């Protein structure tokens, strides 16, 4: 409770929440606020924003409601960002724990694999994976996680290596617990905090990679994405640049909010350490 209060007392966390909470609420309420197909044609095409109260952000090339698309797009961005980060953290934590606790051979092999994944640009990897497997929500999530797990794996491994020598681990061994049990029951939970500290950066980069993939036409074709909206707007960039600019602002707000939450958490951790 105190650590949550410490987190909420930072200006960064407050600013981040003030930006992210409305986005989350809008994304969750999208089916209520904008029932029906957001891809339906509702008005004259290329209506500029702030002209008609029924269509506050105007319409796109085909006369579809920009605000409805934006809110539905928030669902995809946040969902993909969170799901990809969660998968990356899980993969990374498990691989890092095995590398740190599984002996020298496992460590050597897993760390070489981690290095190989870090050698290939994460975005290229995601691009190749999605274009080979096909663009669905799940394949996009997995493709992003594929490039994001090495950092948490390295942090988890380093942490496990230092925890491994602690007394309570030796005690668990003496009691006769099996190595797997020790690794995942005793060590992993204690190694998690520094791994979780990476989550804001991973969520933010996942949102950005998803946007870039859909901008290049590799998003799930059945979902509205902000990246896809920017790409759509590009065709009329000269006459209606707002179509590309509006979803981009939404992206900046979402990513900035996630970064701010991360900074707030880092500050809260620091202040805890200085009080201790």
């Amino acid at each position, binding site marked *: 409770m105190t650590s949550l209060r410490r987190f909420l007392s930072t200006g960064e966390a407050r600013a981040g929440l003030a930006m992210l909470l409305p986005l989350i609420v809008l994304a969750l309420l999208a089916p209520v606020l904008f029932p029906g197909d957001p891809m339906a044609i509702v008005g004259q095409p290329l209506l500029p924003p702030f002209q008609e109260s029924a269509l506050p952000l105007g319409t796109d090339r085909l006369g579809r409601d920009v605000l409805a698309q934006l809110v539905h797009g928030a669902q995809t961005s946040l969902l993909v960002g969170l799901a990809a980060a969660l998968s990356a953290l899980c993969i990374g934590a498990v691989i890092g724990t095995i590398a740190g606790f599984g002996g020298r051979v496992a460590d050597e092999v897993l760390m070489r694999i981690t290095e*190989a994944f870090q050698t290939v640009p994460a975005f290229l990897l995601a691009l*190749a994976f999605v274009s*080979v497997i096909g663009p669905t929500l799940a394949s996009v999530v997995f493709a992003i996680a594929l490039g994001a797990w090495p950092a948490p794996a390295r942090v988890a491994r380093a942490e496990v290596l230092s925890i491994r020598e602690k007394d309570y681990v030796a005690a668990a061994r003496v009691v006769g617990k099996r190595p797997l049990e020790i690794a995942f029951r005793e060590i992993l939970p204690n190694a998690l905090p520094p791994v979780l500290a990476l989550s804001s950066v991973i969520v933010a980069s996942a949102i950005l990679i998803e946007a*870039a993939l859909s901008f290049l036409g590799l998003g799930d074709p059945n979902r509205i994405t902000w990246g896809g909206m920017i790409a759509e707007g*590009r065709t009329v960039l000269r006459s209606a*640049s707002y179509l590309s600019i509006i979803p981009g602002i939404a*992206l*900046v707000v979402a*990513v*900035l909010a996630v970064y701010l939450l991360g900074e707030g958490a880092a500050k809260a951790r620091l202040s805890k350490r200085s009080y201790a």
Partner: protein
Amino acid sequence: MQRALRLVARRLLGAIPVLAIVVAGTFLLLELAPGDAVDAYIASTGGDATMITALRESWGLNQSAAARFGLFVSRLAHGDLGWSISFSRPVLDVIMERLPRTLLLMGSATALSFALGTLLGIIAGARPGSIRDRILSAGSLALYAMPSFWLGLVLSVVFAVNLRWFPLSGFETIASSKTGISRALDIASHLALPVTALGLVYMALYMRVMRASMAEIWREDFVRALIARGFGHFRIVRHVARNALLPLVTMLGVQAAVMLGGSVVIESVFAVPGLGRLTQEAVAQRDTPLLLGIILVSAVFVIAVNLIVDLLYAWLDPRIGASGETL
């Protein structure tokens, strides 16, 4: 000199297993893709069933997966990255034709982000916690949250569409038959916007690292000693900044892979015919061999950049020898 050679040898040796894993991964991805190289070749050139069987046999595609992997590796060892379906040319030739433009784009963007990021980082880190520091820190975070392709679009709306200062797209004016300095200027004006879009986003990162590293050094004993001896603020800032520069050099290596990924999207925004644009073409044409060739080449590129950065680092900081286990 000998130290540098040892470092190079050790790094090259370490790169072998890493590259082997990348190759194996690429092969796996190639296997996952529907259709094989012959299907693709026939689709682009045409041919009948007997020709398909003959081609499969001569390319070794009728063998087991293990045998095909062996063939794949031995071809790679001879510098043969396979056959590009959409270009009907060897993959390596196509990549090498595009690579220099991407290197120019990435190199300029890296120089811009490094120089500007260091400068702003010094300004912010000169007095950590000051108003100037807070404004710069907040601004850099907002910049870092921007998708580079979107920033590119915004820049092109303002500077290419409205103000007409720069060309909207391309690498150089087509069929202008410009040579020498006028051609260089032509390329520079084409690359100005993509380089700015790519460079500004990553500038924020260098700035933040520089600022954080300076804020840390301000707390060190030698800085207190300088203050105690009555050194002026400006002179102390110089000492702090010099000591804070080293972490930024390592960032250069880490950023190489990220920057390459970013240039893929930026090149597609500005229609720069480089490696990134090629990647998008490979995806659009379902040209899997080309796509995987690009991944292999970029992995080699990232390893090479990191080696250069390590050498630079060892040269800048003599405390770190080739024997140091973590470089």
